[in-house]
């Protein structure tokens, strides 16, 4: 055994390691595991369903259809002059990725307790895997959305209103923001549910409430000054509006709102990481 190898593997088990101690080496060592968990999550999702992977496309379309009929045709909520289908599809593209990641990461500790109680691997692997495997669903939904834009732009009368623009280049950053925002909140909830199981039951309400507080089914431009503050403090609002602005050319795009949203996202993500990291070390004693 050469000494180099020995040094590589040495680790010290100690109580109350600093809040800022992270097992970076472990994360990189277990990257193959990350790959296989992502593969598992993606492949096993619609196994034994007749339509299989088509569900990745059908579920956003079905939701869009419901929104178009109910909010677009029946209640007639304005859509910034866009065809309702495009308007909702665009909002849902961002929102569905957010919710999928949030739901997947928020029960990390509890749903993996049987694994975590028996074997060590960095506890951050499952939440990261959730964010990545949902990213692939996001890409599929994005492709569907682009097909719809193409159709509306070139085969309908709405063509002149749809103005994709250079904000599209911000898209990768926005997607990363959704990923780390949802993961940050998910890690917070996950750390808390290890002790307080009640939060699991609240998750459904939380995500529903949050969707209504985010301009998914209505444009932010419709929100009066009095309520504008709720749009500003909700980091997801600026992201959804920026998505619409990039693809369709409508929406509320303000640099100060976007910056605030980015800072809030970072704060939530980093604090979530710390709290999760702290809870993860002994949660198996209380779970």
């Amino acid at each position, binding site marked *: 055994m050469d000494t180099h190898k020995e040094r590589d593997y040495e680790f010290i088990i100690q109580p109350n390691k600093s809040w800022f101690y992270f097992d970076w080496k472990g994360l990189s060592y*277990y990257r193959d595991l990350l790959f296989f*968990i992502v593969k598992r999550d993606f*492949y*096993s999702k619609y196994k034994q369903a007749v339509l299989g992977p088509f569900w990745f496309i059908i579920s956003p379309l079905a939701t869009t259809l419901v929104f178009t009929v109910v909010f677009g045709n029946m209640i007639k909520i304005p859509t910034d002059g866009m065809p309702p289908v495009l308007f909702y599809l665009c909002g849902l593209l961002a929102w569905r990725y957010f919710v999928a990641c949030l739901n997947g990461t928020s029960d990390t500790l509890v749903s993996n307790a049987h694994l975590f*109680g028996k074997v*060590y691997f960095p506890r951050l692997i499952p939440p990261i895997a959730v964010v990545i495997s949902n990213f692939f669903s996001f890409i599929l939904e994005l492709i569907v959305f682009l097909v719809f834009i193409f159709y509306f732009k070139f085969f309908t009368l709405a063509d002149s209103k749809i103005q994709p623009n250079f904000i599209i280049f911000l898209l990768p950053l926005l997607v990363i923001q959704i990923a780390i925002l949802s993961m940050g909140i998910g890690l917070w909830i996950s750390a808390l549910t290890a002790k*307080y199981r009640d939060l699991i039951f609240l998750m459904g309400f939380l995500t529903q409430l949050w969707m209504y507080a985010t301009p998914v089914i209505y444009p932010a431009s419709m929100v009066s000054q009095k309520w504008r503050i709720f749009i500003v403090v909700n980091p997801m609002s600026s992201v959804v509006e920026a998505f619409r602005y990039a693809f369709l050319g409508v929406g509320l795009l303000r640099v100060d709102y976007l910056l605030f949203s980015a800072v809030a996202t970072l704060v939530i993500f980093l604090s979530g990481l710390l709290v999760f990291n702290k809870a993860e070390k002994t949660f*198996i004693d209380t779970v």
Partner: protein
Amino acid sequence: MPKPIIQVEKLSKLYDLGVVGATTFRDSMERRILNLLGQPDKTRKIGLKHRTIALDDPQAGPDPNSIWALKDISFTVERGEILGIIGRNGAGKSTLLKILSRITEPTEGKAVIRGRVSSLLEIGTGFHPELTGRDNIYLNGCILGMRKLEIDSKFDEIVAFSGIEKFLDTPVKRYSSGMFVRLAFAVAAHLEPEILFIDEVLSVGDFDFQQKCLRKIGEVSKEGRTIIFVSHSMNAIETICSRGIILSQGRVVFEGSQLDAIRCYIASSTENKK
């Protein structure tokens, strides 16, 4: 002189029995509000009245209902050594393995581990019923700490060992329980860690399977691996281990050759019966 591969110094683990009941948000808030109002804590009061841990209990912790599952455990294991840990139920054996394999943190003390660790635990951990045998070999191998390249190189060996070649691309949920166990064990048996933890309580199985386990452990030990073996089977300890320690009520009460440890353990249990 190389450093010992496992070095445990005054390791302790405190479990708070009083907190066990307070797992819901409501309980916790109720206690906090009562505290704010200056009223005595209900759970604490119950704890004080019905003291589950006697004051003179050697394991009694600082709080009325806390218990030292482990207290001041110190020992070292040299490279290539096979250490057997024996002790009654509740002596702290599994807790010790949990701390050494980083599943939970100790309350006090420190342990240094200088090598790659794996535990032979309840087999089939992390198997996914929808995935094929092939995918599960990779997933399970990675969960147990192998890299993809390692699994690639041992893949054929693992398949041959398990004898499920024909069903490699069938979802595991269609396997018979016997096939499932064989595949799971095949993966676990091909781990090549420098340190292996085996908790017998966790690896239940039929006689054949246990024999296979023991044979494999014997082979592994010949390859110079370090093993910590927890067992109630004195027979297994005697044949496999080279040293033994006895845990009792969270403390190390004996450390020496495995034969002496067994003798001491049997003597102490017959003494207790009188």
